[in-house]
């Protein structure tokens, strides 16, 4: 499988009369964007705004962040299974708008038995900015106005699809152009002297509301399966997790997965990248957890790995599933390095993890999500007006989003993302 990723470096984004890219400047016509979702009965309206790094702007109620990409050649469509039939992607040529993200925001009605949609914030400047990767991108912020009476599942599904359509459309303006940068992703046979490494990517699914999509399929019934790294780049994985913001993996981060990219980069030189195992986590019964962990280890061995990098998503049981997978791999003779976030209480004094296996001797931290930060007032807020709280556990609920308030990093979008794309970590002090 060979993929050419053609990147267009975007230096400026602004609303304008037409949607086009010229000399690194992306112009977006809101009417054209709105027309894309006009046939969606769940959506009453959608506004389009732009937020650039360094602005005094706060974006709230974020559901997903997506990188504009489109297929220009090769089988399948971008975000297969959702924007097109589930034809295998990862070959041909794909265009990417580098430096841009589409952020979908909406006030989703109600909460459902403890697992409602949680607050997710990005500050484009100020002390909270470094904690979210989206503060460094030019964000096309979509604010959705939803029809009355929708269930959470209907609402999030409508917003999810709309965001993907907009992202694909924006990338589509580059279809006839030559990219600024062209990168080839192919994994030719590597020397047998090189260490053989696989990537086990654990994705979340929990209850009816929060899940992950693989070629449009909800992963909830899925046993571990194999993916080619190029499939990540064409949007085979789409995020449907609207739980605690800091531990989410955005669609953008599946598209730009740092483990996939680093393993591809080093393939043939420092290692032999044997492939990716995709597994759902948060299995609800001990036998189910063990089955999935064992399958993951078995697949890793079957594709010839000696070592496995494991990343995860979400928390709680997800940490147990991570540790079980680590344990199954190590007991099968595979060395592991695992990525996870920490919950060490606001002052950093609590034991960080909800579960641990003695085999987990090579952990990479994505930071303590309980750490507290004070956000300053901002000039502009997109996405909502009032800070979301849930059942009084976060505190600060009902604060005005434009003003100052204190929050744990939990509410900052992807702040401690255990998918591995952030630079935050915790260390001993």
């Amino acid at each position, binding site marked *: 499988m060979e993929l050419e990723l053609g990147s267009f470096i975007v230096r400026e984004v602004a609303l304008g009369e037409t949607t086009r890219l010229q000399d690194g400047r992306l112009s977006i016509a809101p009417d054209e964007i709105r027309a894309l979702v006009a046939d969606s009965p769940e959506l009453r309206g959608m506004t389009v705004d732009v937020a650039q790094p360094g602005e005094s702007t706060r974006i709230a109620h974020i559901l997903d962040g997506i990188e504009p990409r489109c297929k220009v050649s090769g089988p399948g469509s971008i975000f297969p299974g959702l924007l097109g039939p589930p034809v295998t992607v990862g070959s041909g040529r794909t265009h990417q708008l580098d430096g841009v993200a589409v952020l979908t925001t909406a006030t989703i009605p109600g909460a*459902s*038995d*403890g*697992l409602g949609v949680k607050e997710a914030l990005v500050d484009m400047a100020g002390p909270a900015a*470094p904690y979210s990767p989206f503060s460094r991108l030019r964000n096309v912020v979509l604010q959705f106005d939803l029809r009355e009476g929708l269930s959470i599942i209907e609402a999030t599904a409508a917003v999810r699809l709309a965001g993907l359509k907009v992202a694909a459309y924006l990338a589509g303006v580059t279809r006839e152009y030559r990219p600024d940068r062209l990168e080839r992703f192919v994994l030719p046979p590597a020397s047998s002297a090189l*260490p053989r*490494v696989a990537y086990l990517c654990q994705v979340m699914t*929990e*209850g*009816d509301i929060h899940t992950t999509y693989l070629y449009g399929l909800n992963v909830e019934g899925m046993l571990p399966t194999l993916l080619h790294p190029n499939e990540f780049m064409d949007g085979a994985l789409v995020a449907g997790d609207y739980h605690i913001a800091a531990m989410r993996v955005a669609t953008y981060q599946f598209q730009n*997965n*740092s*483990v996939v990219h*680093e393993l591809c980069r080093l393939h043939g030189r*420092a*290692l032999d990248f044997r492939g990716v195992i995709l597994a759902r986590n948060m299995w609800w019964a001990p036998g189910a957890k063990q089955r999935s962990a064992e399958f993951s280890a078995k697949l890793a061995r079957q594709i010839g790995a000696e*070592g*496995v*990098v494991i*990343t995860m998503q979400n928390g709680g*049981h997800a940490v147990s599933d991570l540790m079980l997978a680590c344990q199954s791999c190590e007991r099968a003779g595979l*060395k*592991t*390095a*695992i*990525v*996870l976030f*920490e*919950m*060490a209480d606001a002052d*950093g*004094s*609590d*034991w960080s*993890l909800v579960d*641990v296996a003695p085999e*987990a001797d*090579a*952990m*990479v*931290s994505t*930071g*303590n999500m309980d*750490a507290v930060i004070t956000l300053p007032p901002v000039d502009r807020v997109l996405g909502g007006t009032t800070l979301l709280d*849930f*059942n*009084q*556990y976060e505190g600060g609920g009902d604060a005005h989003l434009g003003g100052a308030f204190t929050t744990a*990093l939990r509410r900052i979008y992807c702040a401690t993302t255990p*998918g*591995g*794309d*952030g*630079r*935050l*970590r*915790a*260390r*001993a*002090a």
Partner: protein
Amino acid sequence: MERRIRVIHYLNQFFAGVGGEEKAGLPMEIRAGALGPGRKLQAELGPEGEIVATLLCGDNAFAEQPEGCLARALELIGPYKPDLLVAGPAFGAGRYGLACGQLCQHVQDHLGIPALTAMHPENPGVELYRARVYIVATGPAATAMEPALRGMARLARKLVTGVPLGSPEVEGYLPRGIRRNEFAAEPAGVRAVHLLLRKLRGDPYESEVPLPSFERVTPAPPLRDLQQAAVALVTEAGVVPRGNPDRLEARRATKWLRYSLHGLRDLTGEQFECVHGGFDGHFVNQDPDRVVPLDVLRELEAEGRIGAVHEILYVTVGAGAPLANARRFGQEIAAELRKAGVQAAILTGT
């Protein structure tokens, strides 16, 4: 600093030169200037610091009357208006290490000045005080005096300036079990790839999160007679009366609650709800007995298989609970159960 740091140095009876074990009952006292190893510490501090006085106390005197000694210490130190307290080094001496740790913590809390001590990593004072007090790691015995004093002086200078400290390895103190966020040069995924490569090559590698050493809890002896036993139900599933009248938090609960089971044969979704923020509770809302099995326990009670169902249900939410809170909840609930004559408890988790 324009003026010299004013330091109080704490020593036990031995290092102060008063005597050995026979003088361990020496009451807390203070003497002007530096004594014993304090003189070398003074040399290490150089012109930046001055040991204005040395506090000394016998190890037994402190161990037997810690409150009295601490109070006396504050009285004695006060007039010197110190900027910093330095205690020890205690090396492997247990009573001395405990005294150093406790004194440092007390002075930090009551005088609001920084404090530091030094001892061997296996000194019992480390386990008790490392989270609150900076402890420089030393060798096991006084033969390691010189490096200990150097490390203490270095840390002393930094603590007084109030500059945020670097990592324990860099600054020379024992990790306090505290996690602090920082930004790394590379994303976590990249770091994980390279960590794995080191492990595969057989090179030295280090985990960014240490493995814990959990205390072992000795299980209680088995019940002698289940048919006589009062059995309690305890849960972290957050099952509370509808409306959550006591506002139990969905995560990071700050409390545990008691609800009467008097006259209840089972728990129903009309009367109770699940407020736990860590899982999808709608199956529990349909029938709370699914996580708090009152219905089955009542059957066993009626059949005489257990003595009685305890009248009070204990409830909290475990999601995101700091370990310290969870430990405290358990101890408090257990104390009540014991007082009520309960012999066994079914604890349900999610």
